[in-house]
C-alpha cells in the first residue's frame, strides 16, 4: 500500500558560514558558554590554562544570555570577527 512519508519535506539549505576573523584579530580564542551551571567554569579554566601552559591568548569568554534560547547571530558574528578560535560548551 502506498502512503505519504510523514517525515518528508524540503531539505535544509547549506549552513551559512559566519564572518571570518581578519588577520589582525584581537584575540586568539574565545569560550562561548550555553549559560548552564558549570559550563562557564569549565571554559574559564580552559582559557586560563591555555594561556598559562601554552601562551595562547588573549582569550575571551562570552555566554548566551539564556540557556533557553539560541545564541544571537550578531554575537556569533562579533566573536568570529574578534577571535580565530572558539571553544563552545553546549549540551549539559
Amino acid at each position: 500500500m502506498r502512503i505519504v512519508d510523514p517525515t518528508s519535506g524540503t531539505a535544509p539549505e547549506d549552513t551559512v558560514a559566519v564572518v571570518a576573523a581578519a588577520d589582525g584579530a584581537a584575540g586568539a580564542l574565545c569560550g562561548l558558554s550555553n549559560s548552564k551551571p558549570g559550563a562557564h567554569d569549565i571554559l574559564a579554566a580552559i582559557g586560563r590554562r591555555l594561556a598559562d601552559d601554552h601562551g595562547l591568548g588573549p582569550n575571551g569568554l562570552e555566554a548566551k544570555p539564556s540557556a533557553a534560547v539560541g545564541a544571537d547571530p550578531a554575537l556569533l558574528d562579533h566573536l568570529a570577527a574578534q577571535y580565530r578560535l572558539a571553544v563552545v560548551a553546549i549540551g549539559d
Partner: protein
Amino acid sequence: MTDVLDLPDVDDAWAWTAACEERGWGDGLPTVPPTEERVAAMLAALPPDLPHLGPLPPRGVTPTLRSVAANAVMAGCRPADLPVVLAALDAVQDEAYNLHGTLATTHPCAPMVLVSGPVCDALGINAGGNCLGQGTRANAVIGRALSLVLLHVGGARPGVLDRSTQGSPAKYTFCFGESDSPWESLAVRRGFGADEGVVSVMAAEPPHNVNDHGSTTGAEILLTVAGTMAQPGSNNVYVRGPHLLLLGPEHAATLHRDGWTPDTIRAHLWEHARIPVSHVSAGNRRQFVEWGVEPDGDAYTVSDAPENLHLAVAGGAGKHSAWIPSFGGTALVSRRVP
C-alpha cells in the same frame, strides 16, 4: 523526489504499527496509515489563504502540506481539523515561540494549543468538563497531529533531539478550547474578532491544579492561586516568560461577581504570587543572579511582568482551576485559523 512509500501490509493494524516502530515513527500509540487517498481527502478540504511554513528545527526540514496532512491522518484527524493544525504549526514557527529551544530542552514542555472562537463548536473541541483530559476526539487528535509533525518532520525524537529529562503526558497531546467567559475571551483581548477561530500556542508544562472549594470570594480564590504559582521549581522564576491561568468557570464567576477583571487579576497576582527567598536554595540564588534575576525585597516574583500572565476560562462544574507555567524562553503566540 517522491514523498510516497510503498509499504506492505499497511492495512493490517499490527503490521502497520510494527512498521512505524521500525522507522521510529509515532508517539507510541497506534496511528492511522497515511495512505495517498486519506491524505488527498485531507487536502481537498483545505480552505485558501494557508500559512507559509518554514523549516522545522532541530532537523531543519520544511514540511509540505502533504506531509502535514499525513501526520494529521496518523494522529486520527478529520479533514476539518487540518486548518487548526496548520494554524498551530504556523504559530509555533513564530521566532518568539523558540521552537528549537523548546524541542531540544531538558524541560518537560509541550506545545500547548488553546483554541478560541466558533471553531470550537464547529469541530467539537472540548472547552468544558475534562477539557484538559481524555475523551474528546478533536482535542486528542489536533494536539497529537502537531506533536507528530514536530517529531517526524522536525526530528524531535525523544532521546535524540528531544532531550527532556522526564517529559510529560502533555507531549502526547495538549489541546483544549476556551469556554464562554464572563469577560472578553483571551483571543478577543489579543486583538482577534469574536467570530474568528484562533489558536494560541505556548511551550508549556502540564497544568498545575488549583483546588479551592472553601473560598467564597474572589480575593480568597486569588490567595490560593497565588500560593500555587509561588513555587521555586518553575522555569518562569528565572527564565521568566509567559504563563497561563486557566480559570474554571465557577472560580471565574465568583471573581467576576466580585468585580475582578483579567487586568486586575494579573496585577493582584503579580503582587501576591511571591516566592520567599528562604524557599530558594543558595545555589539556585547564585544561578538566578547569573541570569539577571534578583529578589524583590524578601521574595522572588513569578516571571518579570504582570503582562506575562495570560488568563482564559475553560472547564466544567467544580471548584478547580489550573496554572500552566511555561518553558520560560517562549511566548504565547496566537494565529487565526484559516
